[in-house]
């Protein structure tokens, strides 16, 4: 089978699209892990929740309020959904996660795993696991652009640009602003940070809010592309874990770049040997671990 350049480029574009989501999600996961030492297994569930807020806001809000005309538009959902998901995160951090910082980090993982099951199960009861279509895609983004080698839907292009913009904004926030420097200080040396009069518990809550809100945002952006289903997050979360392990927890930029690169890799592998596409990320992970146990951008422990 001869492989055309067109096929490679097309699949690479789709891969970049997936990679943008990997980057957005692994970024949130890395932020939470860096500050709280919690592997947020519920990250996929928050992503799913973000998508559902958009879906429910568009299709059901009017019915609930008794006025069919009321809808949460896609643009509003981009703000509202991460906020709501983030607030749920705050609640969880304050009520549960906070009590687990003193014990083995594994308990954080187990707690969030339980939370993920609860969220997934709740939504499975009311929604088809095959997924509900999201109909709120803005009219401006309908249609496709001719990239020369393929027709690429405008909305997908928009989702890549938006995800990357958000990723770099978060990178800027953490690496280049005062709040970011507090966050980093709180991660590296909580005792000293506290001695400087900084409210470390508040910082932690804020961090969890930020990380979870990023997952919620990713969910809204994903809603018009993939159908919104209760299981959409659990399928993705393990890949994102692998991305995080490959990138290492050392840097924010590491998480972003690894996410993008692996999405691209996955897309290109689909052209050359499709059966391997599902596993290529995990194979890369095993190889990276053998070669650099701390990950590509991680600092050696």
């Amino acid at each position, binding site marked *: 089978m001869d492989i055309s350049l067109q096929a490679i480029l097309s699949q690479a574009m789709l891969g970049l699209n997936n990679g943008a989501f990997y980057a957005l999600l692994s970024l949130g996961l890395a932020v939470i*892990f860096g500050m709280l*030492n919690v*592997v947020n297994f519920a990250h996929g569930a928050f992503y799913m929740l973000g998508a559902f807020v958009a879906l429910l806001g568009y299709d059901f809000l009017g019915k609930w309020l008794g006025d069919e005309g009321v809808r949460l538009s896609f643009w509003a959902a981009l703000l509202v959904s991460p906020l709501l998901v983030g607030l749920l995160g705050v609640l969880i951090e304050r009520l*549960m996660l906070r*009590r*687990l910082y*003193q*014990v*083995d*980090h*594994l*308990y*954080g*993982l*187990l*707690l969030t*795993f*339980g*939370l*993920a*099951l*609860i*969220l*997934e*199960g*709740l939504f*499975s*009861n009311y929604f088809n696991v095959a997924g509900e279509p999201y109909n709120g895609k803005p009219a401006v983004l309908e249609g496709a652009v001719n990239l020369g080698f393929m027709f690429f839907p405008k909305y997908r292009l928009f989702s890549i640009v938006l995800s990357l913009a958000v990723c770099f904004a978060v990178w800027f926030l953490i690496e280049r602003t005062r709040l970011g420097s507090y966050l980093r200080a709180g991660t590296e040396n*909580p*005792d000293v940070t*506290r001695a400087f009069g900084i409210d*470390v518990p508040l910082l932690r809550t804020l961090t969890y809010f930020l990380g979870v809100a990023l997952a919620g945002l990713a969910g809204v952006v994903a809603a018009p592309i993939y159908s919104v289903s*209760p299981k959409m997050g659990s399928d993705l979360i*393990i890949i994102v*874990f*692998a991305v*995080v*392990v490959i990138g290492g927890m050392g840097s924010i930029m590491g998480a972003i770049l690894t996410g993008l690169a692996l999405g691209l890799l996955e897309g290109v592998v689909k052209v050359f040997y499709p*059966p391997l596409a*599902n*596993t290529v*990320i*995990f*194979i890369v*992970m*095993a190889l990276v*671990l*053998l070669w650099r*146990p701390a990950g590509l951008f991680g600092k050696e422990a």
Partner: protein
Amino acid sequence: MEARQLNVGEAIPFEPTRRRTAYWPWLAALAAAAIIPFGIYPSFVMELMCFALFACAFNLLLGFGGLLSFGHACFFGSAAYLSGLALRDWGWTPELGILFGTAGATVLGLLVGMVAIRRQGIYFAMVTLALAQIVYFACLQLPFTGGEDGLQGIPRGHLLGLVDLSATVAFGDRQLPLALYYFVLAVSFGGYWLIWRTVNSPFGTVLKAIRENEARALSLGYRVDRYKLAAFVLSAGLSGLAGATKALVVGLASLSDVSWHMSGEVVLMTLLGGMGTLLGPVVGAVTVGVLHNELASLGSWVTVTIGCVFVVCVMAFRRGMVGELAHWLKRTL
């Protein structure tokens, strides 16, 4: 701020059991298990026994080695597939088929273990999870696994070529698959017994020392990585034994056996029953099994319930059912 970190499984301080001669609890358990099929639906009990063995094998790693693997389903499931292949396509006898599956899981355990033990704690969990996904996709795509259909129609065959395992015995108006039941009973008790011996051996003691303080064990001259790997391989092999036996009982191997939900399930069984206790995983497996069975008609509420059990265990109940009891009785169970 960096208070002393409690290790997983540390809740139960371990004292080596000196009562090695106490065989009566084993005999009592065997006797009880032997009469169960006359009262309770045997297919269900056989499945529970397989899950209990799986949880015990998992606990060997988590409870006594302090290593949380989040990909143990890959050993359970791959053994189910391999023994299914040997039994159905190659016509092997049941005991050889199960051995083949177990051996396969052991080899897989060696491979996964060599990569995974390079990282610790949460990383270890994520790495095992990700590696298990490779196995999952392999089981989805390999020609003999039947993809989404699973490997169906695994025959029970004749044990050692002699005893027909699909034979049933009439009891009242029911047909009891007693031959299979006693075979499964023997296999799982053999497995529990091996785990019990391992935990009470010098090897088990070193393992626990590593769990308590890895640096100290290292400074005492123990080759920590080798001990960890050995524990990992043993745990993988026994998980495989459980999976292979389950395939024989159910007559099919399917993707749910290798999926990460199964990995989560075995973590829950161990956590709920009490990690680091010998009896805990069994109690946990039975509880989770009964929960599934009783709530089956409620659809996704099962998932919600399981999630809630997880949350409650982690927040309030970290010793697990048997662990809390043991703590209260101040003895090991």
